[in-house]
């Protein structure tokens, strides 16, 4: 037991590297928020664009979304950080990770919003249009409020899953939690910082999960 505690719960090592983990936590928070906002906003925009049913545009949206959903996020991050400079496009590790994860979240949330828009019964469109509302007014005032409510559970799940992927930024040396914990581990030859990192993820994401559950009940309405 003593040896276990010494290896995994070494308070001295933890205390030494806690500031680094804390620093990483801030990076993770900023990155995750930026990804969630950009990804969901762009996904909503694409799904609305898709609702206009312009053929050429929709073929492009579906193709782009399918590619982004099929690729592992890590591959996209690496491509942005290591491959794009060869084409003359340079971005920092932070921006590559943010952009890659935002695109992935955009793709998934577009699909989720689109499913929500399709799930609103045709009668809702007809009722609204029959009172003289335009296509856009119907979409904004009648269809989207209902579609968004339907999409909250899958959307929160997906957002949590993708924002957790900020850990992938460690591969391109974004100083977020996992990167800090790993480097602390290699400096100290002691895995305790990894445990500290895991704790940081829990402290960060359990409230997010609870918040997600709260909005689900808050916005659910009986049919």
């Amino acid at each position, binding site marked *: 037991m003593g040896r276990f505690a010494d290896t995994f719960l070494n308070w001295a090592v933890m205390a030494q590297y806690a500031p680094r983990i804390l620093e990483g936590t801030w990076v993770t928070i900023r990155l995750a928020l930026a990804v969630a906002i950009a990804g969901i906003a762009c996904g909503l925009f694409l799904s609305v664009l898709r609702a206009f049913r312009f053929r050429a545009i929709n073929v492009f949206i579906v193709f782009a979304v399918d590619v982004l959903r099929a690729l592992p996020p890590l591959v996209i991050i690496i491509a942005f950080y290591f491959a794009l400079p060869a084409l003359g496009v340079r971005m920092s590790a932070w921006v590559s990770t943010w952009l890659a994860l935002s695109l992935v979240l955009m793709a998934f949330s577009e699909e989720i919003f689109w499913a929500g828009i399709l799930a609103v019964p045709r*009668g809702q469109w*007809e009722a*609204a249009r*029959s*009172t*003289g*509302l335009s296509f856009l*007014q119907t979409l904004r005032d009648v269809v989207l409020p209902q579609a968004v409510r339907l999409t909250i559970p899958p959307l929160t799940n997906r957002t949590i899953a993708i924002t957790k992927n900020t850990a992938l930024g460690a591969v391109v040396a974004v100083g977020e939690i996992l990167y800090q914990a790993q480097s602390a581990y290699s400096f100290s030859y002691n895995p305790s910082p990894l445990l500290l990192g895991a704790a940081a993820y829990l402290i960060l994401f359990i409230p997010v999960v609870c918040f997600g559950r709260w909005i689900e009940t808050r916005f659910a*309405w009986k049919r």
Partner: protein
Amino acid sequence: MILDVAALHKAFGRLEVLKGIDLRVKPGELVFVIGPSGAGKSTLLRCCNRLEEPTSGSIKVEGVDILTPGVDINAIRRRIGMVFQSFNLYPHLDALGNVTLALQRVLKKSRSEAKDIGAAALQRVGLGEKEKAYPNELSGGQQQRVAIARALALEPAILMFDEPTSALDPELVGSVLNVMRELRESGMTMVVVSHEMRFARSAADRVLFMDQGRILEEGAPQKIFNSPEHQRVREFLVSIER
């Protein structure tokens, strides 16, 4: 004429649903449309505000040809109230919100003005005290009356009813029919697709019998119900009385 339909055809692919409909509705008239399912009754109503695009023919609402390319269809639609079989209330808005949405968005009324008009419309259908109720908190009959108020609030020139009581429990039908009867007495022009024959007998000015995309017979309710000319109409009336 409030509504003037001439030689209206509608096909879905190769399926011809309307095969030349002529229908003229005078102000204050209540025209009742009956017929077997698949006769094209709903399609006729839905063509009149272009929820369905007619294949050919002409439709004039208050003298305006609604099929002219470039016509402002949204402006015309608010002159034609539509009440659906399945109510189609907006579940995320309360009764007043359902009624006031188009007042604010289409007629550009201020919020307080829209509220006054909406409250009056709900009062008119006997739901003055249900302003804050959401659709899921209302009975079917109440929901349908909110839907009528939603159409009514826009002061339409004509109201179309597409089987307004077909989705209701029998005991709730009466409340909706009462509202329709009051509207009729106040001079509202109405076209009603429905199987409520007793209501048709007492309230309709004219009854149309549709079958296979055509108007087979039309006339005063007494004539259609008591002494129809066509065997097909007689068969239909007998079959629904069972």
